[in-house]
């Protein structure tokens, strides 16, 4: 019974991470109509930057202050995103979709190798953060408090994002642009600014996901692509371009993953894709997807 409780918590932690990544992917697609193949690499960047910052700062500052560094990772990735959108992505909005996919694929190749260039092949960790919060007894079994806190961060991030998109003026502009770019431009909305901010926000969330993960498991090469493929499953199940979909998709996928790892480890990914394929066959736009 306690094992089940821990598995549920693990699953929720993983869901929080997946939601951040998938929601960013979905946001960028929903607003800009671009599927960012390099999105997983932004997640990896977030993990590496955080691990690097924690390692550099750990001897100098108290453990509690290290938590600020999670945001350093996320903001660093957001800054990179803000630089990339106008230079690399912007020339592609009017071009066929193949080219948009190809340019972000090129970006993925570059980022994956840049990570290797900067941080090398050895795994990077930031476990100080987990250690600093210690363990809690759940039904007699120890569980890291860090994971519980981060589940809370995930919930808070989801709520903040929802409020941002549905309750602020910027959110209205964002949704208007997502509905119809040309109409938005005709109404005097600065579409370029919306795009760059949406891209930056998406990158921030991917970076935050990486930052949250890296204290619990080491940042390794290839983690970006691995998560990209799973994030695709999340958005395919939930519906590309939908925040509710990203949330439900993340919960479904992480639960499914926890179960298959427990009972049928070889088929972990296969089971995920099978579900995604079935959803696509029954509801081509996903559970919460819009048409088009």
């Amino acid at each position, binding site marked *: 019974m306690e094992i089940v409780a821990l598995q549920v918590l693990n699953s929720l932690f993983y869901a929080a991470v997946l939601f951040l990544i998938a929601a960013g992917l979905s946001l960028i697609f929903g607003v800009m109509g671009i599927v960012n193949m390099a999105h997983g690499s932004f997640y990896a960047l977030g993990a590496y930057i955080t691990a690097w910052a924690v390692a550099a700062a750990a001897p100098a500052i108290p453990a509690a202050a290290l938590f600020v560094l999670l945001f350093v990772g996320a903001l660093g990735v957001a800054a990179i995103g803000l630089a990339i959108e106008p230079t690399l992505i912007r020339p592609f909005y009017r071009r066929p979709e193949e080219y948009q996919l190809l340019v972000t*694929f090129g970006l*993925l190749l570059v980022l994956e190798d840049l990570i290797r260039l900067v941080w090398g092949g050895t795994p990077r960790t930031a476990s100080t953060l987990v250690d600093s919060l210690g363990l809690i007894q759940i039904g007699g079994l120890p569980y890291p408090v860090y994971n519980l806190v981060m589940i809370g961060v995930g919930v808070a991030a989801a709520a903040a994002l929802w409020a941002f998109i549905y309750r602020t003026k910027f959110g209205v502009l964002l949704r208007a642009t997502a509905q119809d770019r040309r109409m938005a431009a005709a109404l005097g909305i600065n579409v370029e600014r919306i795009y760059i901010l949406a891209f930056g926000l998406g990158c921030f969330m991917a970076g935050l996901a990486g930052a949250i993960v890296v204290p619990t498991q080491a940042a390794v090469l290839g983690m970006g692509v691995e998560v990209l493929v799973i994030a695709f499953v999340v958005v395919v199940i939930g519906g590309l371009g939908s925040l509710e979909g990203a949330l439900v998709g993340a919960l479904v996928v992480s639960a499914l993953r926890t179960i298959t790892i427990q009972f049928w480890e*070889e088929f972990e990914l*296969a089971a995920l*894709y099978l579900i995604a*394929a079935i959803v696509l066959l029954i509801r081509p736009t996903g559970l919460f997807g819009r048409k088009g």
Partner: protein
Amino acid sequence: MSRRQLGAAALVLIALALVPVLASTYQTQLLTYGLTLAIAALGFNLLLGYTGLLSFGHSAYFGAGAYAVALMMRYSGIASMELFILGGVLASAALAALFGIVCVRHTRIFFAILTLALSQVLWTLAYKFFWITGGTDGLRVPFAKLTLLGGLVSADAFDKFVNAYYYYVLAVFCVCVALMWLIVHSPFGKTLQAIRDNETRARFLGVRIWRYRWLAFLVSGIFTGLAGILWVPLNGLTTPDVLYWPQSGKIVFFAVLGGFRNFTGPIVGAVIFNYLEVYAIAATEYWQLALGVVLIVLVTFLPAGIVGTAQRLAARSR
């Protein structure tokens, strides 16, 4: 085909036939890799260039061909290249037929994601069922009996094998190019291009879109599978890497490098890419970075690829 094109093709063929005579064993071997990959590129481009579907999962069919050969050798001791081709083509065709049913219901992004996802499933299966596939160690295919070119040529007579195998691959390559040329110029091929240009209108000519996309998917998978089959004895080993996404990425790269709105583009792209990869790996550890930069520059500034751009320049200078 115009007389000039036929003449050019004949010249290229003669030049290719002379390579083992004039060049070193190493260079011959390199070009054999290039020609093998070109067959995969031809198959891939039937989908991207002619049907308008971007697959990020063609590693699946390449790997299906490669693993079919390796498993045949490991479990039934088969060594005949002709049987390899037969078995490998059947395996990749079966896989493409199955995956195709799922994928061709979608276009654009969803198609790209689905093809990527399905290929990753195959990769994890090859990785995790190590007692069958050898896991990360892979499966060895040290030699193949080239029935058409006589006798068993094993690793002992390495030079002889390389040359014989080169001609074998060249012959298959020529057949593939001719076949694909016929396919894209056939009523079927024109129908695919029509679907690419305007799906709705094609539907209102009475064309059943899914059926044609599925057939294109199948043919594309078979060509790519054939490339995997030919690649294994050359490489001597197949590992899960051939099923992994970077392999699909490479195949995409071939087409973009040469130009995918162009029949010869992907062929040229594959051969050039092969040299780039070999020499870039030798020159730098970070060749994937270089590759990414090249890809971004290509799609930003030279979307027609090498062949397309060359043709445009030639047309302008005339």
